[in-house]
C-alpha cells in the first residue's frame, strides 16, 4: 500500500480510470434516458450490453467481421430491437405503476442472462483482434489502442445523443416527456411513441457499450448485472435524467475504482464506489454536475 507513487504511475491510473469509465458512461446514458421518460431503472441494460458483446464476438469468430465494423449494423439492429422491446414488454404495463415495469425488466434480465449462458456456455470470452495488444505511447504513458477507440466512440455517441435531444423534434418530445409526462401528453406527444424512441436509443447505446467492451475486456453472461449496478451509480453521480452528467459520472466512477484498486484491494474498491455513491445520494441527490438544486 505504501508503494512509491510516481507522478507517471498516478497519470497511468487516472488515464486507465477515465478510459474504463467511459464504458460505464455510455451504459449510464441509456439507463438515464429510459429513467427519464419511463421512471424505471432498466436493470436489464447490462444484459443487453453483454448480448451485444456476444453478437460482435460471434461475428468476429465465425464470420471474421471486425468488431469495430460490426458497430455499423449491430447498433441499428439494437435500435430496432429496443423499440420493439418496449412495444412488446412494456407498453401494456407502462402506466399501471412502477413495480410491473421494474419486475419485467428484472425478468427480462434473468431470461437473457441464462439464455446466453445456456446457448453459449458461461465461459469467459474475449475478442482477440490483430490490434488488441497494440498500445500507443503518449508522453511516457501506455494507452491501449482499443481502449482509446472505445473512448472516442463513447464521446462521439454522447455528443450524438445530446444533439439528438437538443436539435431534433423527436428529441424535444423525449425531453418534454421526461420533464412532465402528463403535460407532454396534453400537448399531443404520443407517450408510447416517445418511450419507444427512448428505449431504442438506450438499447442502441447498450450495443455500442457492448461492442467496445468486447474489444477491450473479457466478459461472461453474468457480467451484465454488475455492469447495470455500476451504470446506476454513474447515473446517480450525474443526476438522474441528465445525459452529459451520466457520461461524466461514469468517468468519475472509473477513476474512483481505478484509484481504489491501486491503493487498496479490488474488494475494497467496490465498497468505496458504493460509499461514494451513498454520500452523493445523500448530499447531492440532484447529481454532482447539476447547476440547480433539486429535492430528491
Amino acid at each position, binding site marked *: 500500500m505504501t508503494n512509491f507513487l510516481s507522478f507517471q504511475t498516478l497519470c497511468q491510473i487516472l488515464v486507465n480510470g477515465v478510459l474504463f469509465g467511459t464504458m460505464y458512461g455510455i451504459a449510464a446514458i441509456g439507463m438515464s434516458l429510459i429513467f427519464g421518460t419511463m421512471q424505471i431503472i432498466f436493470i436489464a441494460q447490462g444484459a443487453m450490453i453483454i448480448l451485444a458483446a456476444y453478437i460482435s464476438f460471434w461475428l468476429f469468430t465465425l464470420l471474421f467481421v471486425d468488431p469495430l465494423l460490426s458497430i455499423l449494423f449491430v447498433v441499428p439492429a439494437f435500435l430496432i430491437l429496443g423499440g420493439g422491446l418496449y412495444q412488446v414488454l412494456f407498453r401494456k*404495463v407502462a402506466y*399501471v405503476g412502477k413495480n*410491473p415495469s421494474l419486475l419485467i425488466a428484472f425478468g427480462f434480465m434473468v431470461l437473457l442472462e441464462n439464455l446466453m449462458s445456456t446457448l453459449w456456455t458461461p465461459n469467459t470470452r474475449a475478442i482477440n483482434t490483430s490490434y488488441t495488444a497494440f498500445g500507443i505511447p503518449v508522453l511516457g504513458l501506455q494507452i491501449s489502442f482499443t481502449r482509446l477507440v472505445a473512448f472516442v466512440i463513447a464521446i462521439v455517441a454522447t455528443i450524438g445523443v445530446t444533439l439528438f435531444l437538443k436539435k431534433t423534434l423527436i428529441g424535444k418530445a423525449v425531453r418534454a416527456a421526461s420533464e412532465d409526462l402528463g403535460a407532454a401528453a396534453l400537448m399531443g406527444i404520443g407517450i408510447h411513441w416517445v418511450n419507444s424512441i427512448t428505449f431504442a436509443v438506450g438499447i442502441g447505446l447498450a450495443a455500442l457499450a457492448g461492442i467496445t467492451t468486447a474489444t477491450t475486456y473479457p466478459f461472461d453472461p453474468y457480467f451484465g448485472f454488475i455492469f447495470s449496478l455500476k451504470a446506476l451509480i454513474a447515473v446517480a453521480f450525474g443526476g438522474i435524467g441528465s445525459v452529459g452528467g451520466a457520461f461524466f459520472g461514469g468517468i468519475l466512477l472509473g477513476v474512483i475504482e481505478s484509484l481504489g484498486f491501486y491503493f487498496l484491494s479490488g474488494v475494497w474498491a467496490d465498497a468505496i464506489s458504493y460509499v461514494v455513491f451513498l454520500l452523493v445520494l*445523500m448530499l447531492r441527490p440532484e447529481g454532482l454536475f447539476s447547476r440547480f438544486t433539486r429535492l430528491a
Partner: protein
Amino acid sequence: MKGNRLMGLVILGTAVFAGVPFILDSESSYVVYFLFLTFIYIILAQGWNLVAGYAGQISLGQHAFFGLGAYVTAITWLRGITGYFDPLAMIFSGLGTAILAILIGIPLLSKLRGDYFALGTLGLGEILRVIFTQGGTLTGGTVGLLLPSGVYESMKPYYFTGLGLALFATAAVYFIARSRIGLALIAIKDDELAANTNGINILKYKVLAFSIGAFLTGLGGSLQAYYLFHIHPVGFFSLKWALYPILMSIMGGTGTILGPIVGAFFLAGVFELINIWLPESHPIFSGGLIIAVMLFLPNGFIRLKIKGIFGEKGERRRR
C-alpha cells in the same frame, strides 16, 4: 376479506402445514424441505411488504439484513454466547439488524425518497458484503464461518421454527397494519405531504417500519444460518435474498396480508418444479414467467378477486 375469514384461513393453513411432517418423512421428503424454504421466503417477503407495501419505501437492501442476521447467529454461537437453536441468538439477530436499520434508516430515510432510497439501500447491501468479506477472523473472510454441524438431528425443528416465524411475521404485519402505526404508514405511502400536515412524524414511522422489516429479515437469516451451518458472504449477502422476496410480494400483491404468502408459494414452487424437470434451463423459464405474470396480472394474484383487503385502491402511477 373480513378479518375473521382471514384469521380462519391462516389458522387452517397453519394447521395443515403443521401436520405435514407427521405424514411425510421429514428427513427425506423434498416437500418438507421445499416448505421450509418457502417459510423463510414468507418471512422475508412479509418484512419487505411492511416497508414497501404499507410504508411505500422500496428497499433493495434486505439482503444486508438477512446476511447480518445470519452472521450474528453464527458469531454469537461460535463465541459460546448462545447455542444451537437458541431463541436468544434469534432475538440477537433480529435486534442487531433492527439497530442497523435504525442507524442506517435515519440518515437514508430523512434524506432520500422513492427511487433514491431504493438505490441507497442497494448500496448498503453491497457495502455490508464487502465489510464482512474483509472482516478477518471475526467473520472468516471469503470462506466464512463453519458452524459445528454435528448437532444436526432432524429437519423437524427447522420446519416448525420456519412455520412459527412465518406465522409470526404475518401476524406482526397484520396487527401493525391494523393499528395506528399501520394507518400512519398507509397515509405516508398515499401522500407524504398530507400525512405530515396532519401531524404524522414521517421519519419516525418510516424508520419504525424499516427496522421492523429488518428485524423480521434478520430472523430469517438466523434460521437459514442454523440450517446451512456454513455462513459465507457470497451466499448470505446475495442479492437474491432481496430480489426474490420482492418478486414474491409483488406477484402476490404488495400491501396485502396474504399476497406475499401466495407469491412465495407460487414462485418458490415454480422455481423448484422447473429446477427438477428442466434443471439446465430453469432460470430462463423463471425469467419468462416473471414477465408473463407482470404483463397479465400487474397488480398481483391477490387483487384478482379482492380489491385490496383494507379497501385501499390498487396502485396508481404517480408523477
